[in-house]
């Protein structure tokens, strides 16, 4: 519990500081000016979505290998948090795009593959709702989760492989790319803040799934006991007669 409070405090403090740094410390970008500062939350959210989906991918493989329920819990926790992060990406992106490109959205490779990624993991979460049996639910979602992860490298490389409206990468983007050192530092602070938030949310969501499992076990025991007592009652009444 103390670790969770420390993580929550660190995440909130880092996010507040990141907001301040993005507005007042980061240098002004020469062509886009203020609106470029969305970069400090748009990019970290996108990276954290990738990290969360990678957690899902690892958890799905581990579940299929070991059949331990804890991996399924981690998978669903990572998927939900990944969807939350990619929702941020899909909302902040158009807010940034509109004043710069003149349109809210365009169906280029980067934007479309990101939207497909969001749809895939939303489908992953919805699929779980349709299946009752826990083993089947975990197996189907593990297979689907591994398949869904194939879109992550596609999103990452989309603006390297195809001509896109979305800008070319500024980090690890080759000889013509690069970032002002101060912009890099502010981006790093924002990234660590969002990463801490993501870790805290995954931990909370994992706990929720573990408790749900405990609840189902207890409910099964309570129902079994009620059924036993229900069977005993007519027998006792017959003996009395």
């Amino acid at each position, binding site marked *: 519990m103390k670790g969770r409070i420390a993580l929550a405090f660190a995440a909130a403090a880092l996010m507040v500081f990141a907001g301040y740094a993005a507005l007042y410390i980061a240098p002004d970008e020469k062509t886009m000016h203020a609106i470029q500062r969305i970069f400090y*939350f748009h990019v970290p959210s996108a990276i954290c979505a990738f990290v969360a989906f990678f957690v899902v991918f690892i958890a799905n493989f581990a579940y299929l290998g070991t059949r331990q329920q804890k991996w399924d819990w981690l998978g669903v926790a990572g998927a939900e948090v990944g969807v939350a992060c990619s929702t941020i990406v899909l909302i*902040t992106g158009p807010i*940034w795009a509109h004043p710069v490109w003149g349109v809210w959205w365009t169906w280029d490779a980067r934007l479309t593959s990101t939207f497909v990624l969001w749809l895939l993991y939303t489908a992953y979460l919805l699929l779980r709702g349709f299946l009752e049996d826990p083993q089947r639910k975990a197996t189907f979602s593990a297979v689907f989760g591994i398949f869904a992860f194939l879109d992550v490298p596609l999103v990452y490389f989309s603006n390297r492989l195809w001509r896109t409206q979305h800008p070319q990468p500024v980090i690890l983007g080759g000889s013509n790319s690069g970032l002002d050192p101060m912009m890099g530092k502010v981006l790093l602070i924002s990234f660590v803040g969002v990463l801490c938030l993501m870790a805290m949310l995954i931990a909370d*969501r994992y706990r929720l799934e573990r408790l749900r499992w405990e609840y189902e076990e207890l409910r099964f025991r309570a129902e079994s006991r009620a059924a036993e007592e229900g069977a005993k009652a007519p027998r006792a009444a017959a003996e009395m007669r």
Partner: protein
Amino acid sequence: MKNFESLFAAWMVVWAVFFLYEVTVARRLSKLQEDIERLKQQLREG
């Protein structure tokens, strides 16, 4: 500052999504904990 409204909106979206998500998880957690306690009590009483 030009486009400040858009920047502010984006900043609010980040906080709103994380905050609302955390609230829903916390609510689901507390509801589940209550249900577990109720079931445990039921099982103890036999």
